[in-house]
Structures are given as C-alpha cells and as structure tokens.
C-alpha cells in the first residue's frame, strides 16, 4: 500500500515535471523561451541591451514561421544579479512558465544553476559568463553552455600570439597587484606555460607607489627581450618612464588596461612606441555580424557594441531554436542533444534562423555561424572568439592593427 501510494506520488510528480513540456507541444500554443539576466543590481546597466537582442532574435524566429509551427514568446526574468535571485527566477521560468531553455545568466548565477539545469532538463546558456568554473563544466548532457568566450581564452590568445606570431618563448612578467591585472596575468601564465613558453620571472608592483626603481633593476638584471606588462594606467606609466630614464628601451607586450590613447599620451610616444596588445573581437566585416548589426540598429535605433554581449545573446536564442527544430520537439532535452550539432563545422553554413530551418528541412546538417563568432561549442560547451587583431603603438602614437589572426582554432581555455 505504502509503495503503491509512493509510486502514485512519483508518477504525479513526474507528470508535474513533464506537464509544461507537453503544453508546449500542443498546436498553436506558443513556445516560451526564457531570458534570465540581472535587470536590477550590478548587471542592471547592461541588461536592457541583452533584452533587446533577445527581442530581436524572437521576432526573427517568429517572422520565419516560429519553431515547428509554434510562435515563440520571450519571457524575460530578473535574477537581481544575485545567486538566490537566479534560483527563484529560474524556478519561476521553468515551473510557472514552462520554458524549455534559459538564456543569459551571468557567472555566479549560471554556476549556481548547474544542478538545477540537469535536474529539470532545461539547458542554461550563458551569454556573458567569463568564469573559469565553466571551463570544463558544460557540454552535451550537462545542460550548461555559453556563447561568450571564457576569461581564460584571453590568456590563450596572449600566449598563442606571443609563441606563434612573435616567436617569443621566454618572457618576464611585470604585474600590478590588483584584482583585474592579477587575474589577466594568471590566465596568461597558465596558458603560456602549458603551450611551451617559459616565464623567466614575475615581478610584482605594489599599487600606488611613485618609485619602482628596485623593480626596474630586478627586470634589468635578466636583460629581457620583451616584457609582459599587466598593470593599470598610473602604475604602468610610472614603470615604463622610470625604466626609460635609466636607459632601458624594452619592448612591451601589454594587457587590455593599457590599450588606450591615454597610456601613450601619459608615458610619451618615444618611450612606448612599438608596444603590442592583442584584441579579440567579432569579425566586424563578417556577413553574420553585418546582418545582425543592421537588423539591431534598424529595430532599436542604436548600433550593437562588441563587448556588450548582444550578439552572444542573439546567437544563443538562434542556436537553441535551431536545436529544437533539429530535434523535432520543443523540449530542453532536444536542445541539449542538438545544440552542439547545429553549430558544428562540416554542415551547411547558415547565418539566419530561416536559412537554418530550410536546410534542416532539406535533410542537411547545419553549421550556424553567429553574429558573435562561429559558436562551435567544444566538448565542454565553450566557444572561442573568431578573430584576434594585434595592435601596435606606431611612431606617431596611435594604436594600429598590424596583424589579423584567425583564432577560431585556438583552444577555448
């Protein structure tokens, strides 16, 4: 009796769990897709742009006839930029709205939702989470993905560019002890050493000092070719000026913090000319970015910006929708099973939902090429940034692109 009632309870619960999914499969019922980002809290200033990207994606999907004949409805939910806010937001999206997929959560929220995703069979696709915790956590079967690159991918970019393009297999690191610069330095160091480079020494600069003479002497003792400089503006300027005053004319390889005209102006062109910095970005002349950018600008009267994760969000909706079409049902399981498939090299390249559906209906394998990049998920649900530009400070003090490198094939982290 006890087991019977227990079984009945379980059956009831199973039915409850499946109920939203079967609702979505009925004729004419809309398929809901969830966007879960921090409309309030720390992410507040960025969230409206992501919501716009989601609106644009859903409108395009509906113009192309929806998913499997059903219109798509966007359900936007606030996660208050917090972990517990993400828990309640995701619970509402899945249990009240019955969405088969959740797109958008930032680093801490998506990490917290890992078991939620598997337990509910609802894929969660981040479009802005850089956290290293996802480097090996996602992929088919885990229901966790991201369409933006990991923070550690930037470290890989630095390492690959130095090793492959500059033939620089030894380097000295000069790092200011701040959260952002230390993290950039650590990801670089890990990637550089793994790929065969040697770090001769890591010299740490304490923030806010006026005198770095002893650090300059330490670096000079190694007679370096090139210095990996990860500092903020003020400290970076102080360091390079003091080295120059002592007669050292080193080559600098700098991180993103120093890639600005201000750095050149403050330090002086004669000192920093020749300094290098790699930048990863969308391929801005690619067809898919151009198409997205034009549509976004027309719809919202403002151009999308690289670094705002609008393209990543748009792409996440597109691949999730295509995965449902490929799987033949609007369920989370279908998305998880097909998400990697619909964006894998080898298939017919498509850059829009309509083209993707047409190709799938023709029985072809497809490879969605996104606005943000190629969206080729690796086995851990991570992607790379397709292009890296190498910038150098010219003799007249401007940052010039001296090289474009295809970074699609770089390891994702």
């Amino acid at each position, binding site marked *: 009796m006890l087991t019977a009632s227990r079984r009945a309870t379980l059956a009831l619960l199973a039915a*409850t769990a499946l109920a939203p999914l079967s609702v979505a499969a009925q004729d004419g019922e809309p398929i809901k897709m969830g966007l879960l980002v921090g409309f309030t809290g720390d992410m507040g200033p960025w969230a409206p742009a992501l*919501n716009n990207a989601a609106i644009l994606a859903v409108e395009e999907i509906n113009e192309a006839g929806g998913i499997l004949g059903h219109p798509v409805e966007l359900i936007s939910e*606030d996660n208050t930029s917090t972990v517990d806010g993400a*828990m309640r937001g995701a619970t*509402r999206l*899945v249990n*009240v709205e019955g969405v088969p997929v959740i797109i958008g959560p930032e680093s*801490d929220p998506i990490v917290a939702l890992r078991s939620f995703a598997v337990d509910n069979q609802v894929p969660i696709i981040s479009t802005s989470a850089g956290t290293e915790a996802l480097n090996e956590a996602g992929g088919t079967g885990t229901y966790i993905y991201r369409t933006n690159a990991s923070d550690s991918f930037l470290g890989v970019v630095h390492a690959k560019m130095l090793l492959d393009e500059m033939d620089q297999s030894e380097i000295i690191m000069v790092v200011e002890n701040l959260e952002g610069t230390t993290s950039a330095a650590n990801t670089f160091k890990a990637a550089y050493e793994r790929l065969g480079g040697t770090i001769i020494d890591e010299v740490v600069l304490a923030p806010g000092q006026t005198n770095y003479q002893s650090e300059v002497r330490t670096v000079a003792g190694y007679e370096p070719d090139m210095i990996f400089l990860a500092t903020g503006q003020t400290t970076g300027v102080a360091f390079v000026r003091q080295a120059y005053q002592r007669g050292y004319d080193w080559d600098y390889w700098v991180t993103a913090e120093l890639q600005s005209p201000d750095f050149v102006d403050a330090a002086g062109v004669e000192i920093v000319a020749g300094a290098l910095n790699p930048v990863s970005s969308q391929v801005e002349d690619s067809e898919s970015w151009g198409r997205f950018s034009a549509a976004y600008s027309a719809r919202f009267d403002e151009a999308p910006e690289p670094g705002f994760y609008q393209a990543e969000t748009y792409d996440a909706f597109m691949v999730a929708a295509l995965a449902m079409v490929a799987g033949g049902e609007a369920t989370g399981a279908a998305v998880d099973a097909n998400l990697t498939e619909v964006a894998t090299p080898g298939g017919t390249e498509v850059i829009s939902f309509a083209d993707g559906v047409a190709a799938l209906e023709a029985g072809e394998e497809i490879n969605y090429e996104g606005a943000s990049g190629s969206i080729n998920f690796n086995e851990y649900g991570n992607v790379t940034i397709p292009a890296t530009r190498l910038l150098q400070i010219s003799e007249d003090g401007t940052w010039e692109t001296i090289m474009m490198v295809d970074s699609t094939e770089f390891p994702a982290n």
Partner: protein
Amino acid sequence: MDGLLIFATSMVTLAAIYGMVCMALNLEAGVGPLWDLGIVGCFGVGGYAYVLLTADPAADYQSYLFGFGLPMWVGAIGAATAAGLAAWLISLPTLRLRKEYFLIVTLAFAEVIRQFYANEEWLTNGVAGIYGLDQPLKQQFAPGDYPYVLMALCLAGLAATWALTRQLSKSPFGRSIKALRENEALAITAGIEPTATSRRLYVTAGAITGFAGMFFVWYNTLIVPGQFDSDFTFFIWAALIIGGIGSQRGALVGAFVFILLHDSLRFVQVSGEMAVALTSLRTALVGLVLILILRFRPDGLFPERPDRMTKGSRHA
C-alpha cells in the same frame, strides 16, 4: 498550478532563511539593546565555515587550501561556532560604543569581513567563490521532490530558531537584555552587568545567524563574497520593521511579507519589452509599501505587546 506551487516553495524556503536571521536580529535589536548593522557578517562567516568544513578539496583551477569533506552535522556545528566566535571578536572593540556608534562600526566590520573573503584566496577561493556544493538528502529523493525537502529542512531550522529565540527572550537573560534596552542605568542598579550581558547576546545572535548561513548555502549551492554585502543586512532590517521590531511574530511575518513583496511582480506576466520597466518598478514597490507601513502602522504589522508577568510565567 503545480508549477506555481514549486515556485512558491522556492520563495517559502528563502523566506524561512530570512526568518531565522530576522529572529536573531530581533533578539539583538528588538528585545535587546544592540542595533546591529553588520548581521550579514556572521551570516557569511557561518556560510563559509560550513563550506570549508564540508566541501571537497579544491579542484586544479581553484585555490582554496581547505575543504575537509566532513559530514554536514559537523558543518552545522562549525557554522554556529565560527559565527559565534567571530561575533565575540567583533564584540571586543565594538561593545565599548554607544548605540549609533555601535551601528556604524558593525556596518564597517561586515564590510571588512566581506573584503576578507574576496582577498584571501587561499582560504575562500576569492571572488570566484566555491561552487557545486552538496545539498542534504539530495540523493535520497527524486529531483522533482527535492524543492519540498529543502523547504521542509529550512522550515525545521526556522522552527528551531523560533523556539530558541522565544525561550531566550522569556528567560531571565531575556529580561536582562530588555532592561538594558529600556533603561541601562536602571538595569545596572538592578545588578545587570551591561557589557557582559550584551556580549552574551551578541555572540548568541551571531551563532544563530551563522547557523542560518548554512541554509543559505544549501539554497544556493555555492558561496561567493558578493552574496554577503550590506544589502542583506538592510533587507533583514526592512523585514523586521515591516513585521514589527521587538515582536517574535513580527520578525517571522516580516520575513515572509518582505520576500513576497520582493518577488510579487514575478507573478505578473508581461511581454519581453515591458520586462525592463516592470523589474525596475520592483524596488520602488518595496519602498512604497515600507513607507505605507511606517505611515499607518509605525510599529509594524505585529507590534511588540507589553509583557504581563502571568503570561510570561506561563511560557517559562
């Protein structure tokens, strides 16, 4: 409808955790004399202590040293002990101060503690936090059942906190702290030692708050420094003021009303384009309700009632 039930379960679970902290704060600031603006400090210490004791050792991309993988009951004791110990340390300098100054310094201490989590990577894995934490009894139940199990656990924790704080406020200790709240000079003449009594109160409330931190870890399955900023302290204070400061029932109801208010707009269905406007209304709504309550029920929904000795002795 069933989906709504699971969503409601998630809200009740969080409200129960808030309720525990509300009651601890009520004991300190409502029944007792300590206006503590750093309650999140002990909450975080409890959470981190629990995690460090029970989590598995660090993976290769993490950097925290400990992660003892001990049973959860050890973690529970550890959470309360560590938070009580932290409270004791904080009380050493702070209890020399009068009301408003105590308030400012506790606020500062909570921020210092949060900076500690963010910077001491060897202990806490820094801003990246520690994640993938186990939830109790998770393996024994189907995933669909688990929200109810977690809610039951949190409600049990809430009930235990209710019983403990109620017992404490009815006890001679409770009468001492109430006397200190009402008139410290008079309390001293009655033989109550203000600093020692306040310290016992601060440590007790800290330990209860740390215990609640463990439930917060269960709810979130990860711990990051960002969870423990002063917003949490102000939320708890808001909940307590809504419910009625000084009243046990007020603390409980306040927590539930606050969470319901905070999430009420999640029940409203709007189009994607309206979502941005609607969510920004939420904080305004909470603020408005708080103002209305203060205007029409300045002592909260369930104001503190004067204790009659006959009633008090019945509960003793």
